[in-house]
């Protein structure tokens, strides 16, 4: 009887408030070793695969990575100039500008939390300063957001979870909308666009920065189907996430500066102006 009352009280308090997160993180210290234990076989297999890969394969991979690095480096050169130009232009418009982000690389634990929910567990928690609602990326695009941060692990809700929605914008023309998870891996839906919206298969969707959780400008998905039915108000649009949601083991947790910093941009422009004058 006591047990029933206690669990009911717990259920209600956690549902109504978030007062018991302390209890959860304390208990998670007991439970987290289980997650690491379950992950162990996968980690060992991966480690073994790394250590026995042949010299030839390593050499090939090294060459490929070097090429990639050169390409990225040259792109970055241009990027820096573009960023400066962008800051200057924004300063001219007297607009705010958000400066860079800090990232933490976290590794996925192969643990299956519950069916029907696209929630994964990573090996970094509040000990590393992770907090709920932080955006999570991989090398290709947005993965999801931190759903719950525990001391040694944290739970990440993927963008394909049926309870997840992310504000996006079409990169081609800046059309704003919201992408919802469909519950299927590799499928997002855009339920809020009218049938005459200017969107077509192949369009890249990027984060719009509205809502404040996700920083602006990261690729989210590519539109792969657009069907406008004349008898319905909204079109059915589906998109494929850019991030490799079911294949990647390394994820990046992002700290973005949510406060915009117009003062810094002004000081940069004044500095540049003064340096121009010196010349």
């Amino acid at each position, binding site marked *: 009887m006591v047990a029933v009352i*206690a669990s009911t009280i717990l259920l209600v308090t956690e*549902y109504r408030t978030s007062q018991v997160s302390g209890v959860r993180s304390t208990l998670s210290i007991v439970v987290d070793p*289980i*997650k690491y234990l379950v992950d162990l076989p996968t980690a060992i297999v991966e480690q073994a695969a790394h250590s026995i890969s042949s010299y030839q394969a390593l050499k090939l991979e090294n060459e490929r990575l070097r090429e990639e690095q050169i390409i990225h480096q040259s792109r970055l050169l241009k990027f820096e100039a573009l960023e400066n130009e962008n800051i200057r232009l924004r300063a001219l418009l007297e607009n705010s500008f958000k400066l860079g982000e800090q990232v933490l690389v976290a590794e996925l634990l192969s643990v299956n939390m519950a069916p029907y929910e696209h929630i994964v567990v990573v090996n970094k928690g509040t000990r590393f300063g992770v907090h709920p609602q932080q955006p999570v990326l991989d090398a290709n695009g947005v993965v999801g957001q931190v759903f719950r941060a525990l001391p040694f692990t944290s739970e990440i809700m993927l963008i394909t979870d049926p309870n997840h929605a992310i504000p996006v914008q079409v990169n081609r023309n800046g059309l704003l909308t919201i992408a919802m998870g469909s519950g299927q891996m590799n499928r997002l839906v855009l339920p809020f666009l009218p049938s005459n919206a200017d969107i077509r298969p192949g369009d890249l969707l990027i984060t719009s920065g509205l809502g404040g959780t996700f920083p602006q400008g990261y690729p989210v998905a590519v539109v792969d189907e657009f069907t406008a039915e004349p008898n319905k108000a909204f079109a059915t649009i589906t998109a494929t996430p850019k991030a490799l949601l079911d294949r990647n083991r390394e994820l990046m947790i992002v700290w973005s500066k949510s406060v915009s910093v117009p003062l810094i941009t002004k000081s940069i422009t004044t500095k540049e102006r003064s340096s121009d004058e010196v010349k």
Partner: protein
Amino acid sequence: MRLNNHVSYFRIILTLALAMCLRVVPLSEEMALLNPDWVLLVLVYWALNLPERVGIFHAWTFGLLTDVLTGRLLGQYALAYSLIIYMCLKFHNRLRQFPFFQQGLFIFFCLLLSQLLLFFIKNLQHPAQLHASFWLPVFTGTICWPLVYGLMRFVSLFRFVK
């Protein structure tokens, strides 16, 4: 047959921890739908065979740990497990006399009740669609019961030869 009281506490905890590992083992999407509630099966075994050692307190504690492990709302597994273990304790003397088939039927209803409670709580949070595969773990759990029973029998009776 009543087990002797000398089963070490360590074994009970170890089997429950193993069951929790099985609970979150990474499986493909289809297999994950079939993964039965191992923690409950192991708890029921201990409650039927060592009712004076494993009771509602254990059920509640491990339910709470399962909640944290699977990221549910705190207390829902704790509630379901403690209710079912209460039932098991109430009927354990009668259940031991039952033939194996009837025991299986009892396990089936235990699992069904726990799943019903979980669905009820989930529905209170936000109305959820009931997918038919939600009930699959009940059936796989019942199918796995003889296996769990045999293994646990082995674990609880096994003695290190001196």
